């Protein structure tokens, strides 16, 4: 453990000058394997109060455990609404969301949303922010062991006791990721979490989040309007169209084994998805 921590600290300090810190691939031992959640969405419709038309209409999706699913669609087609409904932060007008067979009634530490803004608490350190979920779940006993492991996983061990206001936007989003993973959720819901970051930081985080999700076996639902992001991160893409929000395309993604941005396989897959998006959305 001590040896581990020292290794991580040294590694991160060396890389701290760069905008992006590589994630040390040492997390498997520290974090027990979670099995991802199975998500079933049945005939989901939603209308905001005071609106004439449905914002989402009769949406049915099944996400098998451990899949990374991208929801792609133009602005205003209801992606965030769908994510809020899945997370239980909002209740649907019709239909239901079932996670591992249980109907979602509200928020739970087992499924966690990561939003576009990290929204960290500026009166707390990095480590305290990462520990919030465990505090709320009355699992404070796990904090001393979990939080250093999480910060190591997102490459921020050296920043544990810093105030979050000292961090760059990308580092703050990494803290938000650590905070989301603290309670060992089996479903991670991402609402355009990288869209406010610069291209360089965004790429690094896209790859890191996918790697971490795969290492932990998480099910991920990623909302994005960036085709490339969907192709890099997701196993499967759903394309949504607006008025009312509905799913028009459901396709598996195979961007080559490396998911390398410059490989022909990736480029072909990205182009296929872009074409599908243009013709259906």
């Amino acid at each position, binding site marked *: 453990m001590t040896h581990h921590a020292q290794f991580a600290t040294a590694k991160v300090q060396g890389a701290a000058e760069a905008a992006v810190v590589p994630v040390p691939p040492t997390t498997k031992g520290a974090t027990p394997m979670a099995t991802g959640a199975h998500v079933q969405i049945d005939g989901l419709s939603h209308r905001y109060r005071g609106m004439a038309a449905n914002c989402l209409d009769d949406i049915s999706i099944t996400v098998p455990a451990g899949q990374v699913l991208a929801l792609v669609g133009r602005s205003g087609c209801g992606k965030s609404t769908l994510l809020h409904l899945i*997370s239980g*932060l909002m209740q649907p007008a019709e239909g239901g969301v079932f996670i591992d067979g249980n109907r979602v009634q509200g*928020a*739970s*530490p087992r499924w*966690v*949303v990561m*939003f576009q*803004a990290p*929204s960290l*608490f*500026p*009166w*707390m350190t990095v480590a305290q922010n990462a520990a*919030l*979920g465990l*505090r*709320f*779940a009355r699992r404070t006993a796990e904090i001393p062991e979990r939080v250093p492991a999480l910060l190591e996983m997102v490459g921020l061990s050296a920043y544990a006791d810093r*105030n979050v*206001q000292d961090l760059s936007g990308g580092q703050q989003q990494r803290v938000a990721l650590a*905070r*989301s993973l603290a*309670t060992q959720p089996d479903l991670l819901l991402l609402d355009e979490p990288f869209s406010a970051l610069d291209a360089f930081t965004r790429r690094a985080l896209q790859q890191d989040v996918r790697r971490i999700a795969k290492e932990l076996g998480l099910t991920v639902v990623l909302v994005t309007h960036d085709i490339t992001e969907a192709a890099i991160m997701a196993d499967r893409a759903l394309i949504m169209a607006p008025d009312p929000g509905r799913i028009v395309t459901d396709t598996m993604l195979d961007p080559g084994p490396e998911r390398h941005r410059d490989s022909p396989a990736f480029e072909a897959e990205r182009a296929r998805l872009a074409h599908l998006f243009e013709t259906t959305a």
Partner: protein
Amino acid sequence: MTDAAYTPDDTVVTEADTARADALRGMARNLGISMLGLGILGALWAFGGWLITQSDGMRAFGQLAPGPTLERLWDMIQRGEIWPMSAPSLERVGWGLAIAIAAGVPMGILIGRIGWLRDLCNAPFQLLRMISPLSWMPIAVMAFSTWDGAIIFLIAVAAVWPILFATAAGVRRIDPAWLKVSRNLGAKPVHLLVYVILPAIAQDILTGIRLALGIAWVVLVPAEYLGVSSGLGYAINDARDSLDYARLGATVLVIGVIGYALDTLCMLAIKRFSWLRSDT
């Protein structure tokens, strides 16, 4: 430029030294200006004292000039009169503020969070707030069996509004995303209060308390003109009745100094609990 400037280590040290020297110079400058301000106040005081001695009808008040006043103050300090005189006042202000905080902070949080309650309370609270706390005096005297009770009531009535309004304003400025993120992480209402709302508005509450303390300290002296036989207000009244003007001046000075000290304490507390970065 010397050779030393090219070695990075030396450059860093030099920059740190320069920064420290700058900071020291800034502090010295601020201190100097503060002392100058106090000096001007003292000079005006001395000038006023001199004017009084020049006019025949006012000569009796000459004791209010800096010389006699400071002499008497020194005398009072040596005889240990300051603390027995101030302690009852501080105690009354402490109780009044404590009651104002206990009522104002929870009410402020509720008003900040609940829209209909805010609308309901707005008009009555604005109305009550504009009533001079001293106009409650006769009612307070009737309602409370002890003088102390009446004084504490007056201070609490004066102090509750800034605390309540500052708290409510702070709550309304809380980033809704903080609450959403917390709910998403499984926070119960008590978690929201302890981990989000209270830390987020700590400095708003303290700013309200600082304002309230200023008002309470001002209301205290006239309130202590009521029946009590202790405290700074009583001491002023007593000195006036016994025509001991040097003592009157010294007591006024003590009131000012204690008030200034309390305000400084509040300011330090605000700094301590502030999470806002001034440099960003």
